[in-house]
């Protein structure tokens, strides 16, 4: 064990406080009995009950979940395919460009991604709404999936797939029976990552949305401009819980799964 000096202790405490204190306050105040956000008036779950009767919030939540499910799933399929091409095909025309372009959207400012997608949809004369948001989310989360799956594929022993071919499985079946199950933890982690990224995206959604497709982050943002209400705190608490659970599952599945499949 390394010595844990007072200095380290203080800096860790401050660091974590800086990161998590706002979230803790938000969670605490979501259980506040008072309507005033700044005054503590005892414990209550009334804002959670009130949420259930707020149709606008429920609608927004439903849109968000559908967008996240759709985009995470499609992004996982496309991102996994991109990762396979990048890892397996050592040489093809435009490989360097393609692999660079996979990373670009990760560092691209959301405003630019959002704006360019908006311009694309306008140019194509797409009616903006649920599908444009879902497609936009697919487009930017796909890159994250590709990166996660790619790093797993790099350590994948290709002779496993060759053994499947050798034993009589055609290429597609060999992939689905052997490669996919072995890299599955990474694919699942990629899906979880895409899902949570889609869940809390505000900027790109705002650019690409249309009538009837308000996502939860957009709804929260517009409400906060009129003043913070305890209901918003309650919604955010639920979101924090969902994202935490998601990230925990992804890392646990990822770690145990990878240990099991890499050992052999």
């Amino acid at each position: 064990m390394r010595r844990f000096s007072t200095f380290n202790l203080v800096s860790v405490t401050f660091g974590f406080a800086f990161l998590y204190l706002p979230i803790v306050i938000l969670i605490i105040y979501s259980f506040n009995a008072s309507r005033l956000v700044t005054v503590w008036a005892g414990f209550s779950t009334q804002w959670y009950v009130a949420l259930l009767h707020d149709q606008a919030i429920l609608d927004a939540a439903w849109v968000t979940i559908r967008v996240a499910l759709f985009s995470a799933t499609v992004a996982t399929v496309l991102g996994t395919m991109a990762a396979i091409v990048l890892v397996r095909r050592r040489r093809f025309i435009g490989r360097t460009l393609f692999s660079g372009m996979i990373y670009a959207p990760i560092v691209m400012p959301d405003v630019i991604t959002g704006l360019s997608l908006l311009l694309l949809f306008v140019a194509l004369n797409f009616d903006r709404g649920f599908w444009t948001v879902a497609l936009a989310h697919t487009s930017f989360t796909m890159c994250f999936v590709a990166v996660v799956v790619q790093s797993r594929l790099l350590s994948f022993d290709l002779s496993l797939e060759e053994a499947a071919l050798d034993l009589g499985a055609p290429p597609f079946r060999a992939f689905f029976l052997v490669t996919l199950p072995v890299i599955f933890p990474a694919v699942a982690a990629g899906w979880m990552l895409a899902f949570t990224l889609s869940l809390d995206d505000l900027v790109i959604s705002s650019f690409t949305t249309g009538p009837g497709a308000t996502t939860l982050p957009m709804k929260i943002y517009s409400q906060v401009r009129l003043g913070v209400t305890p209901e918003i705190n309650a919604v955010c608490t639920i979101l924090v819980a969902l994202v935490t659970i998601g990230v925990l599952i992804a890392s646990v599945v990822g770690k145990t799964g990878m240990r099991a499949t890499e050992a052999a």
Partner: protein
Amino acid sequence: MKQALGAVRRKFQPWNDPASRPFIEFRNVSKQFGSFTAVDHQTLTVFEREFHALLGPSGCGKTTLLRMLAGFEEPSEGEIWLDGKNLAGVPPHRRPVNMMFQSYALFPHMSVEKNIAFGLKQDGMPRGEIAARVDEMLKLVKLEPFAKRRPDKLSGGQRQRVALARALAKRPKVLLLDEPLGALDKKLREATQFELVGLQESLGLTFLIVTHDQEEAMTVADRISVMKEGKIAQIATPAEIYEAPSSRYVADFIGSVNVFEGTVESSSPGRLQLETDQGFTVRTATAPVLGAGTKAWFAVRPEKMRIDHDRPEGDGVNMVSGEVWDIGYLGDVTVYNVRLDSGKLVRASVMNAQRAVARPISWEERVWLSWSDDAGVILLD
């Protein structure tokens, strides 16, 4: 047991029978990786039920040859034929061969049983038959108690047997083994070599094994192809390779050997005399007829040399004297390194047939090495 094995094997010599049909044929096959030539215009014929070993140092193209037969690499040039069919363009999953991978490549998410059943399922074999075949294979490799285990819960030796059972389950026309015993310790490896031979004979299959271990190749194979930098240097039985290597490379790769450079003095059928650069003369009965003055090498195995205190009788050929430089006692044999006057070290080994010798040879003594007319071979390369 070993004797019986030898007796069966001596009768199996399809390569000497002009009427026997080749089973696996590499016809003038090359493989380029970019500008690098891994296999260079090689022709190799393997017969049905033969246990054939590809032997050579790491990087000489053994695995590449095997992978071309399995279908993972297409030859850049030449053709590969199996059982009368050209394999060009046939994908790996349609080839009637199975491979045991160097890394074993066991499916980590499947139990031992499922691993073995994998290939049978791909063939659409009925469930009952699959179960029966899997049981049979488990029994064959003595892994019945481990049927439900995952590969990561097995020892190295057990994994190796699962890989073998999985590759044998489909009864392939040819079993390809890529350094199958490389990861095992010496004792287990030797035991497994004999098991492999037993399996191959009882199942009546053709085995093509890749190895860089010359003892392993000698133990298991009917014939060996010794490879060097993408080329096959010699194809012959273990005994022929050992007793009549075709080049210094082969002689040196298999076992240990003393090589002397020299020029041919006289040569007639059944008799060749060579003047070595060490100043002694060699006479052999087993050599091609060569013109006088031809540069050649004389290769002789350490155990074919006699070592004495006194100068042997005779006309002075096939003998040389030197000083004992080093003695290695290995139990069954004793190895003497003798330093000739030129400084060249020559190795002679003597069986320790008796427990005590009246006048043992010791360090720094002057000794005579001698050999008979048929002890060594003349090599031109």
